[in-house]
């Protein structure tokens, strides 16, 4: 008995507050007696602090305290060494926070930070990933817990026997998440209780981590994340800002506001590892894949293992009798890489979908057709049928909308004045997952309802989507529903990550709505006199769900133009078609998909963390030098989706749309550049330095 709120295009509930600047972010809450923290990064890559001289800093006007490993409150060692900060003299990577200055103003704290003198003993370091690095090893699993390597059939034999083969190595640099709002926190201890406003993707998780680190009961910690200015994965766990702010607030016994600078976001909060990927594909003369191998090499830090699951995409995307995937890692003296929009799938699809394009050229068939020919309805990895797989439908629909049919496959065949024009395609897929969550639903005597769940809206429209879901679950118009999210005092819920927020939260919200309606029905009398509340948890239901291959799919189409003299690349258009289950809100969904595609375009053409091996850090650590795509780089971006019903997912029937938009996008751009120019660039980003002087090549 749905009222039909789900599926309708509502504007964001908090849209007005956001555009008028009244929505408050983590360091914007008015707090009496607030002080300001400034984090001090290590100036060396690897070593030990031998001395901290705080005299000058403490003498600087406004400075209240300088915390460092010698005087900071103690933290319990936990599973995340990167937030066990100010506890030891050891320095594991450049930029590790080694001190915090607290002052009465932001400017005074910053000046104080400049005056802290730290001496180090330094050791030799290694910060550059290389395919022949002596430290390469095989991790036990890859993020989050996939097998490291897989093999089926006999790849070597299958590959050797095939008439058509592609063997290509693709390189991607470090990418930095760079949400608009930096990692930022206001922290306040009162009577042994800690209150923080934090910019995070999961307040429940942050609460748990803080409780563990500070050895206080979780009930003594409250984490509020009412509005969050993006995260792209980097705020998926408790990160430095919240721990440093809480340490500092305890030390000075006053509220502390601490925001990392843009420069400090390049490394210490996580980033996408540089990756070297070798893909080998073999096919018969018709382009049917017979052997697939994907070997990925990436880096982690010396303090924790993070193994990007780069080749996992290849395990389920296309079928072939002989298949192999491997992951190898090197421990470098760098910050720990972490989640960044579609970890694994995004870089993995760049390599595989580029190699598929190379294969299409080698076989001499259309790249859309090649993908259709190699579609699999049974997951090659799990051996079970996909709950739904509409890759082919996305390819066909996209090809039609894009006008792919008349494409001349010859590279460098289209020219418009100085511009070489080309088109490219790539497939896309992303797993559809859900995690347990809990929620409450309350009926109020005035006929309105309140739904509470600690979901997080990191700018995606999650609050609005949950409000729509709640209305339908309660069977009332959404105007009668109030939704409350973004506070760890609310029922615990999954992190906003892995494209599973909507699936996980809606599950709990729907069950809460149903339970409340049942309870109201069973109540004696017509009208309840007071509030009626139910609380549900989906622990058992989600935990008991059978493991099945559940994926969203998509197809990305791109038309580029490349200046034949300078090598400048611009996009005439980008078009994506996705099959991602039910779409809760077309307005916010489109933004998610277009945002993901834009980020993929940015990866293809612009973004690159430039590491200086001598200093061990990224030297282009600001948004003037770490380039992100701007509007004039692309004239049109369109995102469409197919109606898709899949009853094996979750009660809302959603697959998640936060990440699939980026998957395959970079490959589609690179494939289009090849089609335009005849030049295959296998190292991102594709910039003028790699393409200049194409006219001379003709």
């Amino acid at each position, binding site marked *: 008995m749905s009222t039909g709120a789900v599926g309708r295009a509502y504007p964001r509930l908090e849209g007005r507050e956001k555009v008028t600047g009244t929505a408050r972010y983590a360091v914007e809450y008015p707090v009496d007696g607030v002080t300001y923290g400034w984090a001090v990064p290590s100036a060396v890559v690897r070593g030990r602090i031998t001395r901290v001289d705080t005299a000058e800093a403490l003498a600087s006007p406004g400075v209240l305290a300088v915390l460092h490993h010698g005087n900071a409150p103690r933290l319990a060692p936990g599973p995340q060494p990167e937030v066990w900060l100010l506890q030891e003299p050891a320095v594991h990577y450049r930029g590790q926070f080694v001190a915090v200055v607290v002052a009465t103003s932001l400017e005074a704290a910053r000046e104080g930070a400049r005056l802290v003198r730290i001496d180090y003993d330094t050791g030799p370091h290694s910060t550059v990933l290389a395919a022949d690095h002596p430290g390469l090893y095989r991790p036990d699993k890859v993020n989050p817990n996939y097998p490291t390597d897989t093999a089926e059939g006999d790849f070597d034999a299958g590959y050797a026997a095939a008439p058509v083969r592609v063997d290509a190595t693709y390189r991607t640099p470090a990418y930095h998440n760079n949400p608009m709002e930096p990692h930022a926190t206001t922290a306040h201890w009162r009577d042994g209780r800690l209150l923080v406003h934090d910019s995070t993707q999961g307040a429940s998780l942050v609460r748990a981590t803080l409780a563990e680190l500070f050895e206080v009961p979780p009930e003594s910690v409250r984490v509020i994340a009412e509005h969050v200015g993006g995260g792209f994965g980097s705020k998926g766990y408790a990160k430095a800002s919240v721990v440093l702010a809480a340490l500092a607030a305890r030390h000075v016994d006053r509220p502390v506001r601490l925001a990392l600078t843009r420069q400090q976001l390049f490394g210490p909060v996580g980033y996408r590892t540089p990756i070297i990927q070798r893909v080998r594909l073999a096919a018969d003369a018709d382009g049917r894949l017979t052997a697939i191998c994907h070997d990925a090499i990436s880096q982690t830090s010396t303090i924790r293992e993070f193994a990007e699951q780069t080749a996992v995409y290849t395990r389920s995307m296309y079928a072939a009798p002989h298949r192999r995937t491997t992951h190898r890692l090197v421990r470098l003296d760098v910050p720990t890489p972490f989640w960044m929009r579609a970890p694994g799938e995004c870089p993995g699809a760049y390599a595989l979908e580029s190699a598929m394009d190379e294969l299409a050229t080698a076989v001499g068939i259309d790249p859309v057709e090649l993908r259709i020919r190699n579609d699999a309805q049974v997951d090659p990895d799990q051996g079970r049928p996909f709950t739904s797989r509409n890759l082919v439908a996305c390819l066909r629909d996209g090809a039609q909308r894009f006008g792919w049919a008349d494409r001349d496959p010859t590279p460098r065949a289209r020219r418009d004045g100085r511009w070489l024009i080309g088109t490219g395609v790539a497939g896309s897929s992303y797993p559809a997952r859900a995690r347990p969550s809990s929620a409450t639903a309350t009926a109020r005597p005035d006929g309105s309802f309140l739904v509470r769940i600690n979901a997080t809206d990191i700018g995606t429209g999650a609050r609005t989507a949950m409000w729509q879901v709640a209305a339908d679950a309660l069977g009332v118009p959404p105007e009668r529903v109030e939704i409350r999210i973004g506070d760890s005092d609310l029922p615990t819920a999954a992190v906003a990550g892995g494209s599973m927020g909507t699936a996980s939260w809606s599950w709990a919200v729907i069950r809460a709505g149903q339970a409340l309606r049942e309870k109201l029905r069973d109540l004696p009398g017509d009208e309840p006199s007071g509030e009626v509340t139910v609380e549900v948890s989906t622990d058992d239901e989600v935990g008991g769900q059978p493991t099945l291959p559940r994926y969203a799919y998509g197809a990305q189409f791109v038309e580029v133009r490349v200046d034949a003299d300078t090598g400048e690349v611009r996009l005439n258009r980008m078009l994506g078609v996705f099959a991602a289950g039910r779409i809760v809100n077309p307005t916010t969904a489109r933004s998610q998909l277009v945002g993901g595609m834009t980020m993929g375009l940015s990866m293809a053409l612009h973004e690159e963390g430039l590491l200086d091996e001598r200093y061990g850090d990224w030297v282009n650590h600001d948004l003037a030098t770490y*380039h992100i795509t701007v509007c004039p780089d692309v004239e049109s971006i369109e995102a469409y989706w197919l109606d898709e019903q899949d009853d094996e997912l979750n009660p809302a029937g959603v697959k998640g749309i936060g990440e699939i938009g980026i998957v395959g996008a970079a490959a589609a751009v690179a494939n289009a550049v090849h089609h335009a120019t005849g030049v295959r660039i296998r190292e991102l980003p594709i910039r003028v330095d790699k393409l200049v002087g194409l006219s001379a090549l003709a």
Partner: protein
Amino acid sequence: MRAFRYHRPADVADAVAVLGAEPQAAYLGGGTNLVDLMKLGVQRPDLLVDVTGLPLDSVEELPDGGLRVGATVRNSDLAAHPVVRRDYPVLARALLAAASGQLRNMATTGGNLLQRTRCVYFQDTGKACNKRAPGSGCAALHGQNRDLAVLDWSEQCVATHPSDLAVALAALDTVVEVHETDGTRDIPITALYRSPGAHPERETTLARGALITAIRLPPLPAARRSTYLKVRDRASFAFAVGSVAAVLDLDGGVVRDVRLAYGAVAHRPWRAYRAEAELRGRMFSPELAGRAADVELAEARPLRHNGFKVPLTRAITVRVLSELASS
């Protein structure tokens, strides 16, 4: 960030006198470069003398047909000025190719000319940089130097000058009017900037405390046929990786006059005199333009990551001159 004082001078003489008396003072224009550098600790003035209130904000047509632009005229206003658009399109285009609308609304003519290099090591006090900390070394020489110089660099500094405006002005033989403690001076813009040499911390030939009051564009009818081409790593809001300002005057296909300047290749806007000499008096052709660029770039010494700037600069020279020739 260091605490600083703020002064609004009554007039030009006051501004110059105050700066002359305060060794750590700096002029403040739009602040779009200086304030960033102050936050980063790269520049640490203790007094800012805000020049934007001085009566230097007008554009004046001169009797000889030239144009005088006050030092505090904002980049946006200058780009939109009808005389600039008509007589010096190269200038309007260079301005509009720079930064973003918001920044151009703030940025002043004087501040633009004296903006500091975008070398990433210069902007990070944790790195060696002779320009910021003389004698500390040049981290860029063997570091990430894709954006840096290919011409006229020294072992002490390989930085480039970032201004697009300055490149156009170099092509136009602009004169910079300055006010110093002991009087006023005219400096051709090509003589304003120094090569890095052994002292990259000395960027200009200005005396300490010198205030730029205006720039003067000489009359140059040929400049009506002029343009600016900038190549950058994204379509807008990025500094140049290569740029060319060009004025071309043909007489029946023969080059009567030509002005050419390059951006993003050296420590200063690079006036391409040798290329001009190669072109002048010859029948124009794209091949000639290419040869001229080759002559100019013959002394280029690319660094590890910026070899592409040589063919790129050559390509845009040919492009720009050919387009002007056929327009």
